[in-house]
């Protein structure tokens, strides 16, 4: 409906993280990959620390470690040095060079450099791409989709030399958005394959960041989608993108290869899950598996049980755009008052929402969400939620105050049921806390 912004010069308690962090996250979903951030040391140290804290997994990332004089004279010398070391020591299959605000403002042209580097070193068999992601634009979400787009572009270009392509109609490429947890991606893959499709998720964090003990530690990413599967995904008969931000990469596949695509803005809540399963049912001609029918019943029943809890409750939500849209749709079904919806930055999907959306930070959530009962945001919102006395429900990125947050699924009927119960429990605990304190102070 409308997109508003509270007038204030500074960002107070930001929701936003840098775009480059999103790109690092995307590359964690590819097997034997190495994101290489072209910027100062902190540009990779902060994302690494933050991603580690959220996923409780080692994170693969390297840096060109630019210093002042490097930026002024020749930043690409550092990049070349970094590439040499990374290639000779780790031999990654995929290498993603992520340009930062620093290289962008300094006007460093690393795309051309990468091209000639590739030619000189005769880099075959691997995938190397670069992407410009300064953090004075967008946020995690746009960085994630931007990196996936650049990766797909590079794949298309590489495959382009090999001539014609055969389409495998039983194979679907899944482009999961940045807000989906490893458990979400796993659930989506399961749902799609339940209709007899082979599914390749690009990127696939469900097998890399979900916690596995397969291979021990490696400086490169472990798990995730391997390069040959990624290249094979170009033969898919259909692309399913989850999250509006993933439409651009899907469109790339369509424009270059003619692969049709379908975008789901989310898969959280009854209606969104219905839409996804109905679509899969229609394109496959297969019946909806019994377990999903059961799960649907379970969800509806749990919503009936929980609706007493949600009566008259109000919620403030502060998330990345796609995630906000998805969560808001679920909240709609719970019948709670949505006091304020705050997105980290503006995208068409939030501009198109039926409710009023604010572009802002946690401080805006605190002011606009005054007297709300439930607060949904990443862990940075904890202090604000405590200040306005709302129950705090962690969601999005980063979450550090809860074990296993990265493994909680919100998609599908089961995910919606879990979230409904979780939110209801939090409200119940809060109510009990209120009762207790009212007795104590009498």
């Amino acid at each position, binding site marked *: 409906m409308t997109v508003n912004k509270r007038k204030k*010069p500074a960002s107070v*308690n*930001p929701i936003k993280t840098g775009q480059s962090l999103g790109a690092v996250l995307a590359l964690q979903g590819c097997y034997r990959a190495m994101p290489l951030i072209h910027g100062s040391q902190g540009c990779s140290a*902060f994302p690494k620390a933050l991603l580690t804290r959220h996923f409780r997994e080692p994170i693969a990332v390297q840096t060109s470690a630019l210093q002042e004089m490097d930026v002024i004279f020749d930043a690409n010398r550092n990049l070349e040095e970094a590439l040499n*070391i990374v290639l000779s020591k780790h031999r990654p299959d995929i290498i993603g060079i992520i340009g930062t*605000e620093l290289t962008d403002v300094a006007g460093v042209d690393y795309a051309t450099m990468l091209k000639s580097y590739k030619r000189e070193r005769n880099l075959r068999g691997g995938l190397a791409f670069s992407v410009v992601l300064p953090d004075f634009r967008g946020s995690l979400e746009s960085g994630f989709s931007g990196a996936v787009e650049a990766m797909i572009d590079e794949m298309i270009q590489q495959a382009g030399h090999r001539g014609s392509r055969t389409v495998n109609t039983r194979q679907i490429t899944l482009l999961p958005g940045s807000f989906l947890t490893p458990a979400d991606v796993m659930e989506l893959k399961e749902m799609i394959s339940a209709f007899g499709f082979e599914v390749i998720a690009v990127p696939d964090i469900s097998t890399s960041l979900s916690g596995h003990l397969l291979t021990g530690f490696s*400086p490169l990413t472990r798990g995730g989608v391997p390069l040959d599967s990624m290249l094979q995904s170009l033969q898919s008969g259909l692309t399913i993108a989850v999250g509006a931000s993933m439409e651009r990469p899907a469109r790339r596949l369509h424009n270059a290869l003619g692969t049709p695509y379908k975008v789901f803005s989310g898969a959280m809540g009854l209606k969104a899950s219905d839409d996804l399963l109905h679509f899969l049912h229609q394109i496959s001609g297969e019946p909806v598996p019994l377990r999903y029918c059961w799960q649907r019943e379970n969800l509806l029943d749990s919503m009936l049980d929980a609706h007493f809890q949600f009566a008259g409750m109000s919620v403030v939500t502060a998330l990345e755009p796609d995630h906000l849209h998805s969560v808001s749709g679920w909240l709609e079904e719970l019948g709670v008052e949505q006091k304020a919806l705050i997105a980290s930055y503006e995208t068409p999907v939030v501009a198109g929402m039926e409710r009023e959306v604010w572009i802002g930070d946690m401080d805006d959530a605190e002011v606009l969400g005054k007297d709300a009962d439930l607060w949904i945001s990443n862990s940075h919102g904890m202090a604000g939620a405590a200040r306005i006395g709302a129950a705090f429900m962690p969601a999005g990125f980063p979450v550090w105050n809860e074990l296993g947050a990265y493994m909680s699924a919100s998609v599908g009927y089961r995910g919606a049921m879990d979230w409904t119960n979780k939110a209801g429990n939090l409200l119940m605990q809060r109510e009990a806390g209120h009762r207790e304190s009212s007795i104590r102070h009498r």
Partner: protein
Amino acid sequence: MDPVRKVDFDSEACGSQTPKSKPCPRPKPGEAAGGCSFDGAQITLLPIMDAAHLVHGPIACAGNSWESRGTLSSGPSLSQYGFATDLNDSDIIFGGEKKLKESIDYIAGRFAPPAIFVYSTCVTALIGEDMDAVCKEAGDRLGIPVIPVNSPGFVGSKNLGNRLAGDALLQYVIGTGEPEPETPLGVNLIGEYNIAGEMWDIEKLMNSAGISVTSRITGDARYQEITWAHRARVNMVVCSRALLGLAREMESRYGIPFFEGSFYGAKETTYSLRQMAYLMNDREMERRVDRLTEREESRLAQDLRPYRKILKGKKAVLYTGGVKSWSVISALKELGVQVVGVGTNKSTEDDVRRIADRVGDDTEYIPEGGASRILKTVRERKADIMIAGGRNMYVAMKEQIPFIDINQERHKAYAGYEGLLRLAKELTYSLANPIWKLAASSAPWDKEVPYDR
């Protein structure tokens, strides 16, 4: 045991005002680890709890880092707010100075902090924002100190950032205020950031010996107390060479003697407390300290007995990178834990010398190379436990190696006598956890014993 002032430390390394031979080494592209100077400056200054900390630049520097440190507050929490000017494309083209000025006004008007620290970042340094002028103008207009911290990430490593933050304190803060007349003057603790509440343990100890803390630089500090740091009688540099320059400068400017010490381990703690009393030149205090340390040490020895038994002969690999390596080694030695490998990538030559004083000859030095290199040492030396920073925690988990977090993100306080006991307990719990056996076991169907019908 007479405390002896150690004066023979030379002044190389980033800690000093004048790096003689080896400045902070240039980070190596492709295998650099650790934060940048901006990170370092924030580590040093964010523990000033009642001040506002405004990051001037695009969002990521603040957005990726706020609320990520383990430094605790006993009261005000304004420093835990993430303030950023959040520059966008057009701000970068037309300059962000106006936005900076407005942001300072906004923060001053809404939160009324005693001071605002403004941090430059790579981008604002690159486009040549005149931050100092904006800060000065705003400070004069608003009547509160607005302090520019010029430590953009690309000038160097985290250590350098610590030092630049110390410079900012010297230039703009220390010496600008006076304590209340009846305040007892004592010791400044420099470079102690109250990680997991360590400062509180240390303060409690000092108070029971009758030594008062004048300024905490900067763990759980209030802005005002740092303004009168120049009135202290002794400076203690708490195991961080980065702020050694600050102590040196204060010695030459205000004649405050300083010493370097640590609170990790009972011996180091006793040494530090004695040194304080000695430098205060107070016989009565020295006696009190002696009584206190004797009492605490004997109680600790009693409490540690069961843990020592378990920990004796256990082997640890220590990778804290910076200066904490030598101080933690002492603590581990007292517990009977043998340090078989130690990281020296961010240590200065001086630190390395101190490490060498504390470890045996067969200890391996790990100069660089990150996680894989540490793991190699752990495996070769058959270490039982890894002690490192949070970034390496899950590296250890993937290899199923018991792990203790020692860096600034940790949640356990290990300083002082109580801290050593806590460290002993943590080590024991970690080693004794059943998960190590469980994680190493395979599923029953993976064991290749055919089913016997």
